């Protein structure tokens, strides 16, 4: 498929590099460069990494593939419900759901994988498989974010302003993201809401405490730290002192500016959409701009057993605007070529609408065939990978297991899939499971890399 399409609609012209400079980003950009060069120093297997960061849009609950990126207008209303008029995109031959008009104009930037499969219909196990690329066995393996923070984080020269794996705004739950890697690789979960007047990021931005008071109470703490002063050579206490130094670095340094959306123009904030997801996308852009290697946006509300179409009509326009703006903005800033945007949930939803009670027009869990979307960071845009059958019920060609998708991201990030995962149990564990261990997939996504 041809990828040389010109973008038909520049979603966002308000943000220019000049604006960015005016708002004082120059200094921070310098820091970001330092953070990035360190992170890439180790790129595996001689191949330079194309991607530096990942923005994961986690569709918690499992979004319908038919109503988003794999429409089946010919399958009839039993499958489509009222959403039976897919729209053309700016890539010839690719159509997507009618509620995604802005994303339709960005199709040259992303590729749609319509043949995702793992066959599991339970949230917790499916969440695990889609985020680790592993089938369950005796151990719990780390999510892609934890693996990236292991290989591209502090242990490998990352010196960013905030921890290398950030989740906006609530933890995903369902399984431990760090798995056998342990606590050090858990994500930093921001809490708060970027759509509020003030995005109170837990720990970094506290309400109502001036810097002066922060400093004077810190002095008080040091004066009263009687036990700490009685045993200055204790190793655990020294570790704690180090974490305190880092914590104050984040509190008093530039980290809080990262989360301060008042530094963006109103036009930009509107463009992303004045809602939590929209503003999360904007924060995510600001984070990757500063070299944060992995940002997850935990986008809830896709477990639509009931009132499915009502929810689609309410939520998809919000998603459409924010994600399309994000892609355009990353592209305009030259960040898309080094930033992977990964969209998907734990599974898709039943292609056949459940019209019967108690669902009355809902869609259930569906892990046999679903859709993910990838853009940037070395993934080609404007492609469709694989295909589902006429109703979106089965994979028709080129099955893609989450392992294949995650392994492709690792490759683009310069993480050696054969590398080892250190763990407290001392077991010999590879970054990526073997192709045989997951059976269903047809291997890495080389056709779009």
């Amino acid at each position, binding site marked *: 498929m041809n990828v040389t399409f010109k973008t038909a609609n520049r979603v966002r012209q308000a943000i220019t590099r000049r604006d960015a400079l005016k708002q004082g980003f120059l200094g921070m950009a310098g820091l970001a460069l330092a953070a990035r060069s360190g992170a890439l120093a180790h790129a595996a297997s001689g191949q330079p990494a194309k991607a530096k960061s990942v923005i994961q849009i986690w569709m918690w609950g499992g979004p319908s593939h038919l109503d988003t990126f794999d429409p089946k207008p010919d399958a009839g209303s039993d499958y489509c419900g009222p959403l039976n008029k897919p729209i053309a995109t700016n890539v010839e031959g690719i159509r997507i759901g009618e509620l995604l008009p802005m994303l339709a104009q960005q199709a040259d930037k992303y590729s749609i994988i319509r043949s995702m499969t793992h066959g599991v219909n339970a*949230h*917790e*196990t499916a969440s695990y498989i889609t985020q680790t690329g592993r089938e*369950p*066995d*005796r*151990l*719990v393996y780390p999510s892609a974010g934890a693996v990236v923070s292991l290989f591209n984080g502090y242990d490998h020269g990352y010196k960013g302003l905030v*921890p290398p794996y950030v989740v906006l705004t*609530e*933890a995903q*739950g*369902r*399984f431990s993201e760090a*798995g*056998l890697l*342990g*606590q*050090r690789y*858990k994500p930093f*979960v921001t*809490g708060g809401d970027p759509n509020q007047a003030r995005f*109170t990021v*837990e*720990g*970094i931005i*506290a*309400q109502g*405490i001036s810097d002066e*008071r*922060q400093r*004077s*109470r810190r002095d*008080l*703490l040091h*004066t*009263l*730290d*009687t*036990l*700490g*002063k*009685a*045993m*200055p*050579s*204790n190793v*655990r*206490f020294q*570790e*704690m002192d180090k*974490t305190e130094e*880092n*914590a*104050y670095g*984040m*509190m008093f340094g530039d980290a809080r500016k990262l989360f301060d959306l008042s530094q963006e123009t109103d036009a930009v904030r509107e463009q992303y959409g004045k809602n939590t997801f929209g503003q999360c996308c904007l924060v995510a852009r600001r984070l990757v701009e500063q070299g944060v290697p992995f940002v997850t946006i935990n986008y809830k509300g896709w477990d639509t057993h009931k009132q499915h179409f009502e929810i689609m009509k309410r939520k998809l326009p919000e998603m459409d605007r924010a994600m399309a703006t994000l892609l355009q903005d990353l592209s305009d800033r030259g960040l898309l070529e080094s930033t992977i945007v990964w969209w998907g949930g734990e599974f898709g939803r039943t292609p056949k609408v459940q019209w019967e009670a108690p669902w009355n027009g809902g869609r259930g869990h569906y892990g046999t065939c679903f859709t993910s979307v990838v853009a940037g960071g070395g993934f080609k845009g404007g492609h469709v990978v694989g295909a589902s059958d006429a109703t979106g019920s089965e994979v028709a060609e080129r099955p893609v297991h989450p392992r294949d998708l995650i392994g492709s991201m690792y490759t683009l990030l310069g993480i050696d899939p054969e590398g080892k995962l250190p763990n*407290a*149990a001392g*077991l010999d564990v590879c970054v990526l499971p073997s192709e045989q261990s997951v059976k269903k997939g047809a291997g890495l996504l080389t056709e779009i890399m």
Partner: protein
Amino acid sequence: MWLCPALTGPRERTGVGGIASPGEFVVVSALLLGVLASLAAGQELISPFEMADSGASSSAIDTLVLVELSKHGIEAAPLCSDEVFVRRIYLDVIGTLPTPNEVEHFMEDSTPDKRYTLIEDLLQRQEFADYWALKWCDILRVKSEFPINLWPNAVQCYHRWIRESIRDNKPCDEFVREMLTSSGSNFRVPPVNFYRAVQNREPAGIAGAVALPFMGARIEHWTPEQREGMAKFFSRVAYKSTAEWKEEIVYLDPAPVEAMSAMLPDGVTVQLDPDKDPRDLFADWLLAADNPWFARNMANRVWSWLLGRGIIHEADDIRPDNPPSNPALLSYLEDALIRSGYDLRHLYLIILNSHTYQRSSIARSEAPEADTLFACYPVRRIDAEALIDAVCGITGTRETYSSAVPEPFSYIPEYQRSIALADGSITSPFLEMFGRPTRDTGFESERTNAMTDPQRLHLLNSTQIQRKIEQGVRSRLATGGGKGDQRGIVQSVYLTILSRKPTESETAAALSYVENSGLKRDQALCDLAWALINTKEFLYRH
């Protein structure tokens, strides 16, 4: 006089810690072996954390520890002060901070065996059962969700049985036998959830799940022959579901089997009678008084839970090439456990009453063996659950939990202490951040108490902690002492948070902050509480 530069240095710098009078030297008992004489030099005591030893210990534990220390020329730390002891023993035994009243009651008690009395009392508390059920549920992997998938009904049923077994001080051999040999519905026969919570239901997978908690062994380190030999005992464990949501029945597969042989972990081959449950045979072997694994594992594990480190370390990695740091000590504890009829509470008693447990945490030696041979009490950050409970207790606030399994399947009572949570899948951002075990594998190492940057950030500057402190100051922290009695309030804040009274210089520093910071009184008191909550003395068991 013995002086350690590392100790004199900081004390001079701080000007806070008092110095014991020159006459107050600790004299290590002359009853101990002659070799210990070289260590009996006077020790300078650091106030308010240490006290002079009032006499010789009669505990065999102490003799065995001191003998080993003396071989390495390592000096043991002196005993901890009563202030340190009361806080330590509450946190270690019931996972709960003492209230100011409890602290004062203990400090005012002048009977010589008051530490012994307090230990006995705490072992009877409800929180003792809560806290140790938590530990057992960690290593037995009790959670609703992935990857254990016990689901809420079974979690509640299993947890209740574990907690009641601890409350009733069920001998630990019986406790384990019930888990190993039960059959039936996992909603009705609680201990069968031991098999239900095993992810890999292949016989070898079950063998691994048995070896880790009950033998302290990782079968990954065994030969394939040993693994397969043990797996045979579990080759007839079968599962079937029922019409009830998520209920499962664990049973002995009745299908006729040929006579087969199995190999015990000690290498002895046994014939399995097709008419008998092979699990009984395995349990008989494991729980026999002369079994080399079970008592050793239990004694070592309890020791590691109380002293932060196993005599064999890690406590769940017992194998021939990982020897105990003090073999005689471990043998003594094993023997004590067996002789008591597998009474775990007895084991707690003798360990907690030893001077070894009651030593100061301020090390007198920087030799690497000082830690492995237990020359002082090791500092550890308070467990996630006990820490948030402590902060909530001090401030009179509550923690909010969430569950990925929605109501009505999960139910979270409004007043819920974290140490009493049954389900590893019911959680809060605080618990996740502070290294609560995921209960995925049952390894001891799942619990991580190392401080991380996000944790430090959260304690220093999160809305959650700040709001709790503000609420605490409004509702209770600032109410000690009479009106306008700032000194009384400072003392009350100290007693509530650090479980001790402030020293003169600490009182002066706190009062000076309240008066000179330019903040309103309540704000200044918030900062005082904030500062104390952020001290190492608060955050670490010491």
